[in-house]
């Protein structure tokens, strides 16, 4: 077996692992694990309505950010 096969496999797997790690780090930073109870209950309240609400809220936030000029 050529060395470069090993090298490529190592590189690819470390790269994939790193993506998962960064996703996890992002989730921690984003506060998704701050509240263990809510985190576990979130599965119960997960549906189309909730996704739409979240999107609306996000839009509202963006719009307010554009308009808002604090005195």
């Amino acid at each position, binding site marked *: 077996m050529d060395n470069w096969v090993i*090298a490529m496999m190592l590189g690819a797997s470390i790269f994939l692992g790193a993506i998962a790690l960064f996703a996890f780090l992002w989730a921690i930073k984003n506060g998704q694990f701050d509240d263990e109870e*809510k985190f576990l209950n979130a599965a119960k309240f997960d549906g189309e309505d909730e996704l739409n609400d979240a999107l609306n809220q996000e839009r509202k936030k963006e719009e307010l950010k554009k308009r808002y000029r604090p005195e």
Partner: protein
Amino acid sequence: MSNNIACTHCHLEFNESVMIKDGEHYFCCNGCQGVFHLLSDEGLDSFYEKAGNVKLTPPTSQYEDSSNFNAEAFYDKFVKINSDGFSEVSLIIEGIHCSACVWLNEKALHKMDGIIEANINFTNNKATIVWADNIVKLSQIIDMIRAIGYNAFPYDASIQEAHANKERKDYYLRMSVAIFASMNIMWIAVAQYAGYFSGMTQDMKTILNIAEGVLATPVLFYSGWIFFRGAYYGLKTKTVNMDILVATGASLTYIYSIYITIIEEGEAYFDSVSMIITFVLIGKFLEVLSKKNAADTLDIIGKNLPNEVKIVKDNSIISCKLGDVIIGDIVVVSSGEKVLLDGEITKGSGSFDESNLTGESEPIYKDLGGTVISGTVSIDADIHLRATKDFGHSTLSNLVQLLETAINKKPKIEQLANKLSEYFSSVVLALSFLTFFVWWLWPHDFEVSFMVGISVIVIACPCALALATPVATLVGLSLGAKRGILFKEAAQLETMAKVDTLVLDKTGTLTVGKPEVIKEHIYADFDRELLYSLVKLSNHPVALGIKEYITKGQENISDTIFDEFKQIPASGISVVHQRLEILGGNLKLMNDNHIEIDFKSDNTLFYFAINKKVFAIYELSDKVKDGAKDLVINLSKRGIETIMLTGDNERVAKKVSAEIGIKNLYYEQTPQDKSEFISTLHNSGKTVVMVGDGVNDILALARADIGIVMGSGSDIAIDVGDVVLLNDSLNSLEDAFKISRTTYGLIKQNLGISLVYNAITIPLAMAGFVIPLVAAISMSVSSLLVVGNSMRINLKWNKN
């Protein structure tokens, strides 16, 4: 019971006749009905589906006007402006029972105009709300929360608490990176060690080395940054700490390994780099995790103090800020309220509970002209009070200030591991340099000498040393938690093991804290229902004690409605029932009604008379808790001296101490006296545990090396204390001592193991016998030994 119906909103069950019928729904009150309709109108009624059958608190409509939340002073204190220019506030939301409640609150707030973000933490009911202040005001937000049946009040999200959370999160991040990288390096290392024995081409080796190097880099510079920082501060204060050892060891090994990778010769040690950092980081994280969150301590005191009082001005009663009350103002205090200002009674009379301040278990009756101290609670008195001090100089605020100083003055006993690691680090560093020079001067190549020198640091890996204390204390904490003993900080286990003096409060700690009937003398037969209905009219502790005694074992006692009843302050109750004159109260009440009694006892007495004839006498006393006597005997066997401190009077104190067998006894102690007493003990070189439960103990609790609080104690005391006994039992107090000593023993064993281990391996490394594989394995083995030893104790305790 059969025709009880659950309220559609709160799910509490009531008889059908008292419910409000509204279509097909039933409501227990207007509040629930209002919330239900609001939620239906807003399209939020899927809340009920989500909440299931969880019982909620019915909403009340009696809230103060919310407009004062918009006051400038209020905004100054609680509202922050975030980086986008939006306002942000931290609220505690009351009435959250289930995850659906969280959902409802967030949803309702999100629907409001101008709300950017509402995030509620279910675990601690704290909410962070961000809004645009020109669109919506804080008062409207709070009105909304109240409208859907909850209540909210702001709290000062103290910088410390936020800081502690941030630190924890920071460790999570660094640890995730370290563990991820280390696990991957291990796999690669397996290949390398296999190749070491079976032979491998140099090219392959280099590939593996590079892969390891890539993974080890973030571990050293990101996860390991904590150690570089620690080493820097250590150098600044000229102390050699463990961080220096870890930082130099890891970075030298890293540099050497890069060198090896480049020259394509020899063995790289990247696995050691990441393993040292990961292990020691885990040890540090365990320490951070079990650190007491001192931040909330002072916060809760402020929360318990209302910031407004009612004063009389121009013949009307108005609300006034606590700080604005000046000497001479007339303050209105209603029954059940806490007195916030010192003063003299100008109108009314009644009994006051001073146990907060003095520890006196019985209420004190005060009449016109009597002085009332701030911090006491009015039991049944509706009075007017002329303030004799402003709030800043009141007894209550003095107490808060004294508490702050007491918390700051708390002694810190240095931990064994910290002391040890300083010597350990210096010795290992010195040995490593010595080895390097000896090898170099005894002519060897620079590379070889350098590698041997480094191997000393690597093999003397501080992993086991770093894990020794945290793992042991974690075992101790979990042992305690299973027995209802809550240690707030891991380091306290070690401190507590060194304690030689135990100071106990009487009321609520050694005794149950409320009078119980210990003897009943019946002189003539009478209807128990009469007595029950009579004592039910009063909130006096004696009446409560009798009520409890009568209801014990009897479930259904019907209530008699009296024709007439009168409370006689500091005496008892007199009622008229079907032309019978019934009296219940103390000796004074009997004497005032010319009833002759010849009965003597040390205990508190309650007389029950019908038509001037005594039917029954009850003897009441504050009972000593089970196991109090054994506790004193067992602890003295362990060489711990027991002292009782009480605010109560001499007679009661002596009676209790005689019963328990405590010889050292101090009575009529004010909170300041208690705290002074602890200081005196400190000065004579004692390490002191203080056990208490009330506000009158908090100064002493804060000052003592360890403050232990009963779980039923006041909120402030629980917050100030270091250890909480959740089941109030004195047996768990003894357990707490046992656990702390076991843990301390464990710490010593673990430190011993890691030192002995190093004593064997360091000379081997200095002689140059250590190959990378041995170094890596020995690191894991020493850590496993320490963890295994701790688990052994855990198993042994759990068997008992």
